[in-house]
């Protein structure tokens, strides 16, 4: 997929102008925030479980090499295959090889962000194999030839009227006068159309929410049941997973499951949590004959052992973007790659390079809501700051911004001059604002005043107030 992350600013401007998108985005706030809060409040142990989840992943990441080895051994023991992929290209070729060996014509797919990351759909299509997304949201955006705009609600940017248009344009074998006004009828139609695809597919590809080292098991957490049909019906099940999905034991995964769905959709538990271990056994009468796991690195080993390792705790619940004012305003596509919102702002530069993804960590007000709701307690704002520092160190910001920062730093290192300058600037701004108390124009601040007034400073400066408070203290 084409990365448009460097064009984040112009993407964001377009997104703000897009009325349809703005209407669709209103559902994010309605749909997720209150539900998460209610689910968290209803479980007294929720905060402790967040601590445990963080600790489990920290332990795992600091022993990641060993847990990966243990996991691989168990997969092989249960009759499955493990393929190691250093790059997206390696992963695509591994998948293609497996498909070719069984002469696959169609591949059904459960929802997988890794499959988006490696761009498997376009690749398979180019090789003459038809990929079919089966998660309702993913199916909708596949018809629209779009990328997901949210990691758990990929079609959150689409209105139901648009879904109706897409279904009418694609499902041309159905009567034209059918009623598709309600979401229920749209869901029914997708169910019927996709049912046959599930039964016909030669290979099923799913992602993985967790890989369990103790048992060699992959886990998917879903609501629709499409992932289960995807992995149960075809001859071959391929799991696409990144290295950091490893979790030591069934007990550990139980802890994290309790915070996953609550943080994501506000459910206590998603409808289907499915554990898969190896291919069909002798005692089985259904299930795949082959089970393959593709373990993807694609830049993650650059993060372990660095200040970005905490990001690898992420379990892709989407809570950070659900609570992000920037995501609410511009949606997911503006971020320009696979991962949007705060987690994307940290992960994208990590995986694609700060030269491409550097704008994203700047698209934050540092309000801190993302960190406050992250079930894995990932310090997202702190890591965005790390990226801003790297960007500055590598001279990647625009000249004006660099000059501004250096100018400010010069003053900041000279406190008396800074205090004096601030006092003068404050008075000046107050005089400029006059009786209105607002500024509609500000020197060097047109980016701000173009869209709204700047409230004029009043009273004393922070430093003055601070100095007064110190008087009398010892």
């Amino acid at each position: 997929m084409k990365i448009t992350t460097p064009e984040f600013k112009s993407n964001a401007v377009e997104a703000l102008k897009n009325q349809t998108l703005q209407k669709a985005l209103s559902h994010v706030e309605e749909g997720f925030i209150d539900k998460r809060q209610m689910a968290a409040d209803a479980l007294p142990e929720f905060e402790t479980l967040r601590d445990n989840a963080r600790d489990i992943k920290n332990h795992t990441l600091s022993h990641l090499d060993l847990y990966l080895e243990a996991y691989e051994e168990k997969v092989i023991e249960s009759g499955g295959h493990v393929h190691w992929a250093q790059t997206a290209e390696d992963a695509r070729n591994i998948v293609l090889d497996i498909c070719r060996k069984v002469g696959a014509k169609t591949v059904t797919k459960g929802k997988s962000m890794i499959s988006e990351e490696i761009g498997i759909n376009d690749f398979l299509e180019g090789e003459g194999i038809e990929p079919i997304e089966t998660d309702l949201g993913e199916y909708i955006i596949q018809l629209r030839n779009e990328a997901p705009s949210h990691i758990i609600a990929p079609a959150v940017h689409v209105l139901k009227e648009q879904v109706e248009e897409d279904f009418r344009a694609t499902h041309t074998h159905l009567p034209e006068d059918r009623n598709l006004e309600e979401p229920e009828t749209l869901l029914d139609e997708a169910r019927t159309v996709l049912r046959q695809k599930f039964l016909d597919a030669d290979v099923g590809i799913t992602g993985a929410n967790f890989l369990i080292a103790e048992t060699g098991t992959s886990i998917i957490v879903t609501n629709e049941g499409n992932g289960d049909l995807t992995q149960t019906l075809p001859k071959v099940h391929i799991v696409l997973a990144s290295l950091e999905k490893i979790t030591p034991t069934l007990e550990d995964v139980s802890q994290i499951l309790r915070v996953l769905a609550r943080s994501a959709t506000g459910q206590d538990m998603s409808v289907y949590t499915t554990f898969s271990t190896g291919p069909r056994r002798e005692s089985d009468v259904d299930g795949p004959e082959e089970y393959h796991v593709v373990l993807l690195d694609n830049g993650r080993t650059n993060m372990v052992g660095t200040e970005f390792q905490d990001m690898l705790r992420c379990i892709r619940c989407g809570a950070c973007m659900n609570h992000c004012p920037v995501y609410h305003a511009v949606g997911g596509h503006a971020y320009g790659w696979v991962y949007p919102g705060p987690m994307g702002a940290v992960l994208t530069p990590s995986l694609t390079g700060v030269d491409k993804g550097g704008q994203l960590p700047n698209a934050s007000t540092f309000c801190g809501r993302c960190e406050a709701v992250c079930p894995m307690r990932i310090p997202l704002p702190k890591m965005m700051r790390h990226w801003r520092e790297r960007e500055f160190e590598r001279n990647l910001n625009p000249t004006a911004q660099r000059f501004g920062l250096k100018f400010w730093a010069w003053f900041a290192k000279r406190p008396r001059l800074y205090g004096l300058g601030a006092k003068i600037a404050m008075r000046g701004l107050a005089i400029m604002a006059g009786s209105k108390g607002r500024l509609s124009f500000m020197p060097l601040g047109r980016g701000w005043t173009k869209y709204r007034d700047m409230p004029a400073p009043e009273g004393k400066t922070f430093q003055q107030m601070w100095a007064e408070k110190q008087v009398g203290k010892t």
Partner: protein
Amino acid sequence: MSARDAILSKIRNQVAGDEDQTARRAAVANRLATAPKGTIPARGQLNTRDRLKLFCQRAEAVSTTTVTVKSYDDVPEAVAEYLRNRNLPQAVRMGDDERLGGADWSKTPALTKDVGPSDGSDLVGLSHATCGVAETGTLVLTSGSQNPTTVNFLPENHIVVIHVSDIAGDYETALDQVRQMNGKGRMPRTVNMVTGPSRSGDIEQKILLGAHGPRSLHIVVVDD
């Protein structure tokens, strides 16, 4: 160097370049062997009666329906009644589960049972759960000829029988029961934790039941 070795050695270098590898290996082996439990929510830690009550309550909160019967011999009538109430034909798809097969089906002669995996043409699937979890009203089903996985997902309606003694308070207890089936570290091919009927919120975040899996889920608890 193979991709595998390159990845593993890079990780090792970065997370534990100069650490004692023996101690690291011991830490991992110990955690895998002892599988320490974390925090277990108090919610599910109840006596059998209250656990059953909580299990049904949590299941009903996510649009599952439940009924309790006194013995396995009452299961066929409970199934037949459910089908009548929902205007469904008297036919179920099921595996060769011994507890289900051993029930007295003579009282429901009109009810046909097709045994084997589902091919997608069945309206109703009947399964026996391995266990359940009261804290979220979750069923745990395991694959095999007794309860094929396709029966859990392809039919429009799913009826699941569970024995009251198999309802655990928490996930850890239930998963440990699954672990004991084949010995530690050996899982059945598929374990399905099911919490309510299939649903999707992908169109404008409105939750609708019956996405790709069953549109309805009915639990029959055997409380003998």
